[in-house]
């Protein structure tokens, strides 16, 4: 297998983009990443596009071909383009497919993109589309919602480990603070623990400020074999590990409802592949679709002892400048969560951090970063480790 490097990245703005279409935003991200990399579009050997529910959000399937076409890469060039779906982990998985395509030697210059346009439908229809990431026949039919499933994780975490609503709110406060320094974030205004606790209850114990919003956005990266990456950029970022794991689709079938075993497994595989431990990681972008999800993620990946994720967050150890910087971008909570785009956005954030281009949210001397993208309530997890040094 060959070493692989990132040579170009681009996030669009995340938010409610009523004036822009699905294809507008993904083309902006794709062209931005191509320009950042310095390659020409006709050099691409392939594209992998993460998208969860184009069919439900914009009534458009056949996303791979659509994007190749509107990027000007179909006519004459006929560049292969593949849609990748793993619910909210679609972006992370598209990145993994692109990495494997380059690592295998089958393709050289490859784009990984992610996109979701969620605000063209009502919030009820958007929630219904998202519920398709859970078990429709045995969870959905009972009236389960995604906040409801994560609320049941939160309730059990509180019961077993004494995690508090204030500790969960601290995740949101930190991520909004980080997001206030990120130009692409949907919500840039800082919030307080009180404002989280006083916001309306969605699914007890999760308030609306414990939940990531419905968002439009796209992100793209360009990959090349590490041996030739310096021909395109002075700051290639190397992929040290790519890992993916599956678990039961329904929350009720999990071994332990407070642990996402898919995250544990993917994290373990990634650390083994990179020959690293959590102590080697300077920053991590984790999947904080809900505040409890970030607490579980830092426990599952080994940054916090089981049950101590909430306490660690409350004590500021996951802030920029703390023991491990978690969600420097602002996470899904502040940036917004355009489901298919999130996994690629995480890679863009870590790349910008490792290049030293993260502005006010820069982690000093960042050398190694991790991304963690979850599909559903934990049925898929995708973890990557990226580094400045090959």
């Amino acid at each position: 297998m060959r070493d692989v490097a990132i040579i170009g990245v681009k996030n669009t703005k995340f938010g409610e983009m009523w004036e822009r279409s699905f294809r507008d935003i993904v083309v902006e991200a794709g062209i931005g990443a191509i320009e950042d990399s310095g390659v020409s579009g006709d050099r691409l050997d392939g594209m992998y596009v993460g998208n969860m529910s184009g069919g439900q959000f914009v009534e458009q399937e056949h996303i791979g071909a659509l994007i190749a076409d509107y990027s000007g890469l179909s006519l004459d060039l006929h560049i292969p383009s593949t849609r990748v779906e793993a619910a909210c982990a679609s972006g992370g998985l598209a990145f993994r497919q692109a990495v494997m395509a380059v690592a295998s030697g089958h393709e050289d210059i490859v784009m990984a993109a992610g996109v979701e346009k969620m605000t063209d439908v009502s919030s009820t229809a958007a929630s219904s589309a998202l519920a398709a990431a859970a078990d429709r026949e045995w969870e959905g039919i009972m009236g389960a919602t995604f906040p409801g499933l994560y609320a049941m994780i939160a309730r059990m975490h509180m019961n077993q480990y004494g995690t508090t609503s204030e500790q969960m709110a601290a995740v949101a406060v930190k991520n909004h603070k980080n997001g206030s320094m990120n130009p692409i974030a949907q919500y840039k205004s800082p919030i307080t623990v009180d404002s989280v606790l006083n916001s309306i209850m969605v699914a007890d114990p999760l308030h609306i400020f414990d939940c990531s919003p419905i968002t439009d956005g796209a992100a793209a990266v360009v990959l090349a074999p590490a041996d030739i990456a310096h021909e395109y950029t002075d700051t290639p970022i190397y992929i040290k590990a790519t890992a993916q794991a599956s678990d039961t689709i329904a929350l009720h079938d999990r071994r332990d409802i407070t642990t996402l075993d898919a995250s544990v497994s993917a994290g373990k595989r990634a650390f083994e592949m990179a020959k690293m431990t959590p102590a080697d990681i300077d920053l991590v972008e984790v999947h904080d679709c809900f505040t409890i999800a970030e607490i579980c993620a830092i426990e599952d990946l080994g940054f916090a002892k089981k049950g101590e994720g909430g306490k660690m967050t409350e004590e500021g150890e996951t802030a920029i400048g703390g023991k491990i910087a978690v969600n420097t971008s602002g996470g899904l909570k502040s940036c917004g969560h355009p489901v298919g785009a999130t996994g690629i956005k995480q890679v863009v954030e870590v790349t910008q951090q490792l290049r030293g281009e993260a502005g006010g949210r820069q982690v000093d001397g960042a050398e190694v970063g991790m991304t963690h993208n979850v599909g559903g309530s934990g049925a898929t997890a995708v973890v990557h480790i990226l580094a400045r040094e090959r």
Partner: protein
Amino acid sequence: MSVARFWRKQINRYNLVGTHCKTCDAYYYPPRNVCPKCRRDGEIESHKFSGPGEIVTYTVIHTAAEGFEHQAPYVLGIVQLDEGPRFTSQIVCKPEDARIGMKVKPVFRKLGESGDNGMIYYGTKYVPA
């Protein structure tokens, strides 16, 4: 949910019928075609569950799923049946009465319907025992 999709599992939903693996003696509800532990070495048979269980975790849903708006706030829980398996069900009780470890028993209830002229979905909900 389409009529066919509901109908296929109707006996399971109406009667709490799941499966039992004769190889490893594990019970499954919702039913499984393949034992997740024994995989192809497993021998699956139909099993009707006795019914009682207890709440493992729960939430009170205020922002309802589509089609459940008139029920909000409603209690959604994960119930562990006495034979071991866990599944997701509504708990019919006052939201403030729900608690982890509460003993519950099954009741036959309407789950939903597909419009005014469509199929009515029935199935199992839980009430305090």
